[in-house]
């Protein structure tokens, strides 16, 4: 029996607010409520990184929350996917360039799905999570290997860019 196909059937969600205005968070809670009811796909909002598969992040990364994001990501056992909910989590949004904002979530951890919108609608979140489930099913041991950064990060227009500096896999 292929265990891989069961990943799609019971995705457990960890929701983290990295400094959001709470707009995307109430949309995520609306997904759990009776109207959209994502529990019918077997999703549970666990709130526990050690037992979850999908990391849902809302809001731009603030200086306070960046260590916590990396910590939460490290505590989740593989296979795992990261979904950014809303413009702020994807790029920094309207907060980009502010003194306390580090930019999008992908500055610090690898992101699989970006969900646009301010705030993103519950339908979009469900769509994004369904795309993430496809990625979760394809993940294999090769992807789980860690990568080492080869170059120093680039700083352009006060944003730290770590996208282009990922080196070869050791």
């Amino acid at each position: 029996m292929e265990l891989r196909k069961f990943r799609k059937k019971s995705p457990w969600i960890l929701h983290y607010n990295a400094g959001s205005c709470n707009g995307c968070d109430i949309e995520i809670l609306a997904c759990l409520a009776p109207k959209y009811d994502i529990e019918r796909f077997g999703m549970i909002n666990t709130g526990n990184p050690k037992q979850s598969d999908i990391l849902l992040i809302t809001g731009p990364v603030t200086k306070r929350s960046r260590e916590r994001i990396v910590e939460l990501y490290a505590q989740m056992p593989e296979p795992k996917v990261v979904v950014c909910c809303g413009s702020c989590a994807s790029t920094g949004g309207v907060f980009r360039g502010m003194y306390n904002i580090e930019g999008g979530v992908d500055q610090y951890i690898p992101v699989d799905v970006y969900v646009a919108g301010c705030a993103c609608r519950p339908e979009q979140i469900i769509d994004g999570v369904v795309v993430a489930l496809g990625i979760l099913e394809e993940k294999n041991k090769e992807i789980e290997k860690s990568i080492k950064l080869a170059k120093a990060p680039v700083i352009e227009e006060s944003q730290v860019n770590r996208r282009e500096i990922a080196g070869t896999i050791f």
Partner: protein
Amino acid sequence: MMSNLLICISLVILAPIIGGLVYGIERKVKARMQRRIGPPIMQPFYDFMKLADKRAMIVHSAHAFFGIMHFVSLWFALGVLIFGGDLILVIFLHLMSTALLILGGFSTRSIFSHLGANRSAISALAYEPVLILIAVSIYMVTGSFDISSIFDANVPVLLYKMPLAFVALLLILPIKLKKSPFDVAEAHQEITGGAEIEYSGIFFEFLYTAKWLDYVFCYALVFIFAGNNLILGAGLVIGTFLYINALDNSTARVNYRQMLRFALAVALPIAFINLLITIF
């Protein structure tokens, strides 16, 4: 006699599967009570298969060992219950499985784990005396602590003989099953699972399956109140199932002090009055 033994063995082996089905139906029923569609009935087994595929991360080996032994001792307690063993021994074994979970919770440095273990201990303090009193009342009626003696033909149905004990059991079952309003030990929104928080992957699977076994254990305790009358037993189990889910959906969590006060000031006196009635 031989067929009886076969039924007992197959019940013990199939207990996790029955418990998983009960849990699946419960999630469905709970969702329908909230006007949601709810997950499929096989959902607990999908979760089981998925958890088997996740990377196993352990805090330390003793922590993982306590989790596994929690499952094993609970299964053993259920086996003794199904084979008609000593009721006191069954309650003791169930308490031992809870104690192993508490030890596992205290063996890590996570504060949520400590809080959950603490509250599990308080829950055990709340329901254990009532269970013991119910067991003693059953001894007063049947003249033996053996569960198999309840199913003798000449023993009256326990529900008619001691209805107050059944009421006391109904009052403490939400504490045992960690259901609202007495789910302080688990409290997913508050301490995110309590003692089970540090388990992951295949080690969490043992705790997840132990939860299913707990359902079978509690509903088996309800079932023995009907004695030989199988139809009454099925009715009692279904009624209790609906009662627990309706209670879970309609009430908010109380804090552990209120839970302890309720169990010791309401449920325990009811069980004690029941014991006095069975003696005289």
